């Protein structure tokens, strides 16, 4: 990063550079540079950003779908014996090969380390490339997923232990929604947990009493939507939800669009950042309140984070990365950029492909 000055940040573009973004994603599809090795364990998630990103651009013809399907399916965890599974184990998808070991029956390696976030990304990729999800052995996956739900309704990401927070409630809800089968979770308990995460200021923290945060707020609202606890018109007084305080959430979310530059921040008084255009903007979309976003100002901010050779960065004038690029593309899709596929915001999933 020291040689950032060598990078070319001049001549900000005033338009969305669609072709350069597709080129950037194709490059990432062929191979991620070494700085991503620190995220090796989340390789499925990195792949999801690339493949789902290409889908937003209606550019899936650039990838080998068969190869993608086979690779993703190869990361699924199975019990050693055909239909029996050990109590407490979760049979989802591994994030990468470094958490997956062919079953040598002994010791630490017998613990499978499949992960909720990887499972969500695996299913989302498969769906994106047109794989019929009814072919997945979902009974085993969902039955074992239930063991990850905690007494307070939240989810653990991996059965060997890990931090529990709203991100994994969202993953669980998205998994059930994609598999069209809700036996994998207790929705009432999950709803209680989400309620407990709404802060005094209207936003949601990742866990109860934590500070409101754009990403956590998206996870809360998208989960409620997927689980069927948010009506079609959550803004109208009649539909006013007794699950969460919608007016306060609405006011908190809208206040996150900064008057200084039009971007969204994730927390009060923090700098604006590309990804919150999606996390907070998406929350507003689910509440059907995206009509209150100042779209022109938001677009203007996002373009300052667009890298001239493709991709988006977190802040203006820093290097792009695949995470911020993906959520930048999602934000532009929500802003109805011509040529981009529309999103199902609560799943972060392309709705229906645009005609060729």
């Amino acid at each position: 990063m020291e040689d950032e000055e060598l990078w070319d940040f001049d001549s900000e573009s005033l338009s969305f550079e669609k072709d350069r973004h597709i080129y950037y994603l194709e490059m990432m599809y062929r191979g991620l540079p070494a700085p991503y090795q620190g995220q090796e364990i989340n390789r499925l998630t990195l792949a999801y950003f690339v493949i789902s990103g290409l889908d937003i651009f209606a550019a899936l013809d650039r990838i080998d779908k068969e190869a993608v399907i086979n690779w993703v399916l190869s990361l699924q965890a199975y019990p050693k014996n055909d239909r029996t599974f050990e109590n407490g184990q979760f049979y989802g998808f591994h994030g990468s090969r470094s958490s997956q070991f062919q079953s040598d029956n002994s010791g630490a390696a017998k613990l499978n380390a499949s992960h909720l976030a990887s499972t969500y990304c695996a299913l989302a990729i498969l769906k994106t490339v047109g794989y019929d999800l009814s072919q997945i052995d979902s009974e085993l996956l969902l039955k074992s997923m239930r063991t990850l739900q905690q007494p307070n309704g939240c989810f653990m990401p991996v059965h060997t232990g890990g931090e529990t927070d709203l991100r994994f409630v969202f993953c669980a809800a998205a998994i059930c929604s994609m598999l069209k089968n809700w036996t994998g979770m207790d929705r009432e308990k999950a709803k209680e947990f989400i309620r407990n995460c709404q802060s005094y200021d209207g936003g949601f923290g990742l866990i109860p009493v934590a500070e409101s945060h754009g990403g956590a707020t998206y996870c809360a609202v998208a989960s409620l939507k997927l689980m069927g606890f948010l009506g079609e018109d959550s803004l109208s007084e009649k539909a006013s939800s007794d699950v969460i305080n919608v007016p306060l959430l609405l006011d908190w979310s809208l206040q996150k669009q900064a008057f200084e530059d039009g971007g969204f921040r994730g927390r009060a008084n923090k700098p604006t950042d590309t990804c919150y255009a999606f996390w907070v903007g998406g929350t507003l979309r689910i509440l059907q309140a995206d009509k209150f976003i100042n779209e022109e100002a938001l677009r203007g901010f996002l373009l300052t984070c667009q890298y001239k050779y493709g991709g988006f960065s977190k802040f203006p004038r820093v290097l792009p990365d695949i995470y911020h690029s993906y959520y930048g593309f999602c934000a532009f899709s929500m802003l109805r950029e011509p040529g981009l596929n529309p999103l199902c915001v609560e799943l972060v999933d392309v709705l229906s492909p645009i005609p060729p």
Partner: protein
Amino acid sequence: MKGEEERERIPIKERPEWADVRPVPQDDGPNPVVPIDYTDDFTETMDYFRAVYLADERSPRALHLTKEAILLNSGNYTVWQFRRLILDALNADLHEELQFLDQITRENAKNYQIWYHRRWLAEKLGEHVASKEHEFSREIFCKDAKNYHAWSHRQWVLQALGGWEGELSYCSELIKDDIFNNSAWNQRYFVVSKSPLLGGLEVMRDSEVAYAIEAILTKPENESPWRYLRGLHKNDGKSLANDPRVASVCLDVLTGKTDYIHALNMILDLLCHRHQPSKELKDAVDAVSPDPNLSDVGLAEKVCSILKLVDPMRSNYWEWRKSTVPAQD
């Protein structure tokens, strides 16, 4: 800096203590998707990690190897999990482990696995580490007073292991350093409502309302104390409308004639909850209106019209709020 470390690193295959181990390369299958261009050190370290993991070798050298793997990819929860198994098996000194964590957290303070491991350790070590843990999060906040992981950890330590003494004054200290630090405001709300030493929100409300008002008058454009003030009244519009200090701070801010957007927003909420505005407040609203010819009949509608003009980022929202103002009797 990185280059120096790399020069010092002796490849594992050249270390005599590893001579008996055959590394296990990553099997990426026939058609790997989104491959990562690993550095040689990364590949070698993970190949040896796979070998000890498959052999379930819970030994001092394996413990050291997990450290090397963690330094290369601290998000790898499988490596962390194996490290915990080894620590248990070796009955290792957990205080030493905590020191190792201190060191890597200073360099990489935004990593979920590092903080999860810390919590696992603190849970095992028990109450007597509470003050040490508070000291450590304090150290992290000196560099980044809004570190989300450190705040979650601190809240967990308080609830699980204690150490509440001095927490409210710590919040005051942070807010004094940076009145815009919303994490500190959130912590203050947490302490005021949950501390076993303070008696709860109802008991604290009076003095905390005064604290919030003082902060508002210092920087009326600061969203944090306005939200805090609402929170003290549990976002109950009637309770806010019945506290004369709330309307009064709005009036004071309007009279200052700058940075009054949050004040107008609060007045709107009060009016929607049947607050009867004083003549002074009505006049103060008129006085900040950029357009003297607003045709609104009701004060709430007028406040929305003004907000639409002075807060153009949210003009559609204020227009909508205007359409939802409850009818006056």
